[in-house]
């Protein structure tokens, strides 16, 4: 029965969460204008937000950025939105709902999108201060407020959400424990071996994992202090996050007499109708086919089903794949299809690398034709492809192990061919239900040329983001198919790669950004191309970067690192970490005079924090006069070359590692590059300088030096690879010259050497041919270019200190000498820190 436009059908939606919102979005998109009058009730104080990315709130994403659509969106679509209002009753007979404020609203169709709440097991003491759940922005705010008082946190629950909560606790600086009742982590997604690999990885990140533990009580008064367990053990904690599962919010449905499952959840049929045909339930509150789907994609599909049927179409909800990929934790984990199926119903291939912490399992059908499911821990780059292979029943290759090992012929084609081999109707974005055909057609028809516009046009990739890499592959493949060259361009202003721009700059003798963009680009530039070009100009001509201050990132513009609150840090060079007592005293005196916070860094030098922009030249004047020079901590350039004490003092040392580190640091100081560069020199294999975690690392051997390259620490650590052995000092420096210059010339902006090498076709063997065997015949050029950089080096700070014009730029206001009044500090452990 369709409603006549004169009497719009009244739709009431209870719950303004992810699925409730998606329902509205889909309904207004499909409905005739004026056909429906939509009223939405949400208990939370804010409009629906992206709960899936809730953890990003800890790393600075704001509540606004998480919002699915602002309040104005609801207004624009004539949706009556009541926030902070709880629906307390449904009278199904008279079709009226009541809210806690006493409001009554009549409906023709009622949608229950009430979601779920965190399940809190009935443990003694769960009500204590310092016990939290992890579901809403308010929960996170409460945790953030409490965390500074805490040191050790435990998470009850080692599932998907529990591990995410553990990561959050760790990011808040807390010692973190995970308590799991089952014998393995993520019991619904991983098998024993996968769980074991994940456990080791998490432990190496500093999270303690306790399996087979059942919590009996939470002690402490008023705040939690201790947990006790059934096996008699105890754990001291002062914060607790309960993440033991979800409980569908079916309390309204129960009150209204609708059928619910024995363990909760509102019973629905394939059309998502409850036991009252005019009332629907969607999202995490709905119980379909005995399942509560704790994921967003099935919820969106439910919303799509109800909307389609409302507007006169036909669609049923037939259950949903529960494949998932864990995000954020710093370890890739994925589980897809049927992860557990085994003999005799399937044949299983397992790959395990205990050194790297990788475990992969795929389950293949008896006849060897189809992929049924699998598990990936430690590396899940081809998760999307594997998932598609399951869902679209693509015939697997005869050597099925290629699925997890990659085809080992060394061709990089396979990944691209993979996306192309999918059928048109393959679902690429399961959250939004967008098929490969839809994406490829809109790339062709709408002439889309980047992933951002694909997202905008098709909505693919806008929810969980898991399919975004595939969108990129599809884009490239489709463009190629259309005969268009796929190019890595810098940004909208330059149709060239960084490498090409470098050549243009050199060949045409271009010295300024303006000249370059006027002749070889378009528009006025942006925050992407300006610093990239600044870096290219610096590593080609080595002129004072402040000549073009306004194309530099703020750090380079003020030759200091900007910190929270808008102050800067000052870092003089302490080459190789060697410093005289006199100079140490100068640093102390300068810091005391200007009231700076001091900290020893991981790069063996001293950072002074909290300098106002107007103080920088005065501070540096004192440092320069005492013989210091810029440490370039602010630049994409050489930071430090770390060293151990070496043969001079150490009884194991083979050569003078300090001396060599200083020589190298002074050689490459000030060298601008696509990203920061770090080095290390160790005097023996004990490797106290941690040289193998650097862009270049040198380790003394009996016969000379071993050279390692392309390592880095940071979020994605990677060991440097052994490049050449037993080199004499001169050869070692020559290889370094060539290597660094080749990197500077060919890497994309903001790619560390490790990333650069990972992308390089032919890898380290190819690099050896270029650098050692001179296969491209460019080594003489590389050396000459490096020699030019070394010869033209000048300390930037020295030039500023001695140049009154440049000094004038270091002022907060241009119309008054006053400093920035918004900068504030508070004391902490005897020093000052910013108040934010």
């Amino acid at each position, binding site marked *: 029965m369709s409603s006549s436009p004169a009497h719009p059908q009244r739709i009431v939606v209870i719950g303004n969460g992810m699925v409730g919102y998606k329902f509205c979005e889909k309904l207004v998109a499909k409905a005739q204008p004026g056909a429906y009058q939509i009223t939405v009730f949400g208990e939370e104080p804010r409009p629906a937000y992206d709960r899936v990315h809730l953890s990003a709130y800890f790393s600075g994403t704001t509540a606004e950025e998480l*919002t699915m659509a602002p309040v104005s969106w609801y207004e624009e679509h004539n949706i009556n939105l009541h926030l902070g209002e709880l629906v307390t009753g449904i009278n199904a007979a008279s079709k009226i709902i009541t809210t806690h404020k006493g409001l009554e609203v009549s409906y023709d169709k009622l949608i229950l999108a009430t979601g779920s709440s965190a399940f809190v097991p009935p443990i003694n003491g769960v009500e204590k201060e310092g016990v939290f759940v992890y579901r809403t922005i308010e929960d996170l705010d409460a945790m953030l407020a409490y965390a500074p008082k805490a040191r050790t946190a435990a998470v009850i629950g080692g599932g998907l959400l529990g591990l995410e909560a553990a990561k959050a606790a760790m990011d808040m600086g807390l010692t973190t424990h995970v308590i799991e009742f089952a014998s393995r982590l993520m019991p619904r997604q991983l098998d024993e071996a996968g769980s074991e690999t994940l456990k080791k990885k998490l432990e190496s990140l500093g999270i303690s994992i306790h399996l087979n533990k059942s919590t009996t009580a939470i002690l402490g008064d008023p705040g939690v202090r201790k947990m006790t367990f059934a096996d008699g053990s105890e754990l001291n904690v002062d914060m607790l996050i309960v993440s033991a599962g979800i409980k569908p919010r079916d309390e309204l449905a129960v009150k209204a007499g609708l059928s619910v499952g024995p363990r909760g959840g509102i019973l629905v049929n394939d059309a998502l109708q409850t036991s009252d045909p005019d009332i629907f339930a969607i999202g995490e509150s709905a119980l379909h086919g005995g399942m509560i789907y704790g994921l967003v994609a099935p919820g969106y599909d439910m919303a799509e089903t109800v909307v389609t049927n409302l507007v006169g179409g036909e669609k049923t909800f037939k259950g949903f794949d529960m494949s998932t990929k864990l995000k954020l934790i710093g370890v890739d984990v994925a589980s897809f299809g049927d992860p557990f199926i085994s003999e005799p119903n399937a044949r299983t291939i397992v790959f395990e690398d205990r050194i790297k912490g990788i475990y992969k399992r795929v389950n293949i059908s008896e006849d060897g034709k189809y992929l049924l499911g699998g598990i990936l821990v430690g590396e899940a780059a081809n998760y999307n492809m594997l998932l598609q292979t399951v869902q679209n029943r693509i015939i697997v290759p005869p050597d099925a192990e290629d699925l997890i090992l990659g085809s080992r012929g060394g061709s990089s084609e396979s990944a691209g061919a993979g996306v192309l081999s999918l059928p048109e109707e393959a679902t690429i974005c399961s959250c939004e239900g967008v098929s490969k055909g839809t994406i490829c057609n809109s790339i062709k028809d709408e002439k889309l040329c980047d992933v951002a516009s694909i997202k905008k046009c098709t909505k693919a990739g806008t929810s969980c983001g898991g399919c975004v890499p595939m969108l990129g592959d599809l884009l490239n493949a489709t463009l190629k198919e259309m005969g268009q060259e796929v190019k890595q361009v810098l940004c909208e202003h330059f149709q060239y790669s960084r490498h090409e721009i470098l050549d243009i700059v050199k060949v045409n003798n271009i010295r300024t950004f303006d000249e370059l963009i006027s002749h070889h680009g378009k*528009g*006025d530039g*942006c*925050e992407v*191309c300006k610093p990239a070009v600044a870096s290219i100009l610096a590593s080609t001509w080595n002129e004072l970067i402040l000549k073009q201050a306004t194309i530099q990132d703020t750090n380079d513009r003020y030759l200091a690192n900007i910190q929270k*609150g*808008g102050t800067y840090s000052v870092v003089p060079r302490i080459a190789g970490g060697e410093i005289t007592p006199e100079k140490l005293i100068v640093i102390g005196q300068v810091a005391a005079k200007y009231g700076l916070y001091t900290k020893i860094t991981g790069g063996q030098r001293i950072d002074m924090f909290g300098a106002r922009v107007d103080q920088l030249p005065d501070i540096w004047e004192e440092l320069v006069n005492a013989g210091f020079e810029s440490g370039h901590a602010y630049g994409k350039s050489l930071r430090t070359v770390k060293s151990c004490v070496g043969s001079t003092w150490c009884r194991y040392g083979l050569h003078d590692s300090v001396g060599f580190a200083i020589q190298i640091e002074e050689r490459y100081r000030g060298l601008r590059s696509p990203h920061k560069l770090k080095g290390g020199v160790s005097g023996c294999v004990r490797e106290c300088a941690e040289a193998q975690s650097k862009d270049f690392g040198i380790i003394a051997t009996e016969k000379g030096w071993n050279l390692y390259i392309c390592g880095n620490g940071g979020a994605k650590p990677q060991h440097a690879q052994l490049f050449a052995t037993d080199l004499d000092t001169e050869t070692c420096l020559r290889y370094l010259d060539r290597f660094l210059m080749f990197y500077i010339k060919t890497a994309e902006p903001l790619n560390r050497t490790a990333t650069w090498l990972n992308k390089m076709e032919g890898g380290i063997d190819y690099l050896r041919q270029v650098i050692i065997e001179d296969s491209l015949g460019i080594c003489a050029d590389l050396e000459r270019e490096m020699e030019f950089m070394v010869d033209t080096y000048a300390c930037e700070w020295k030039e500023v200190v001695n140049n009154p014009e440049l000094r004038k730029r270091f002022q907060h206001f241009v119309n*008054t000498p006053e400093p920035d009044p918004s900068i504030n500090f508070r004391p902490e452990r005897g020093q000052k820190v910013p108040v934010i």
Partner: protein
Amino acid sequence: MLSTQNPDTRSSEVTYWFKAAEVSAFPEDGGACVKYQDQQIAVFNFTRRNEWYACQNMCPHKQQMILARGLVGDQCGEPKVACPFHKKTFSLITGENLNGECYEIQTYPVKVEDGFVYIGISE
């Protein structure tokens, strides 16, 4: 001489032109911060376009007093400034956030007369 105007802002609503500083105080294709009463206003000398812009100095993303030190540029022709902290970008004409987020910044009209930069205040 009246040299340039921020094209979109309603200069007609300006009740007071605040004399900020000499043109030479503002770096080419870059910004500097001006103190007006208790407010901090970022002023941009967009030399490439021969245009001037002004906006609040505080970035609404994490409330940092910083926009004057941001890089200026354009997005499909729309002049913009990028915050140095997390690279959020804002239109210098409308103040709208160009990354699709909900906050925006206040912009002000600017005029240049006799070598001085003036910011249009409407109270």
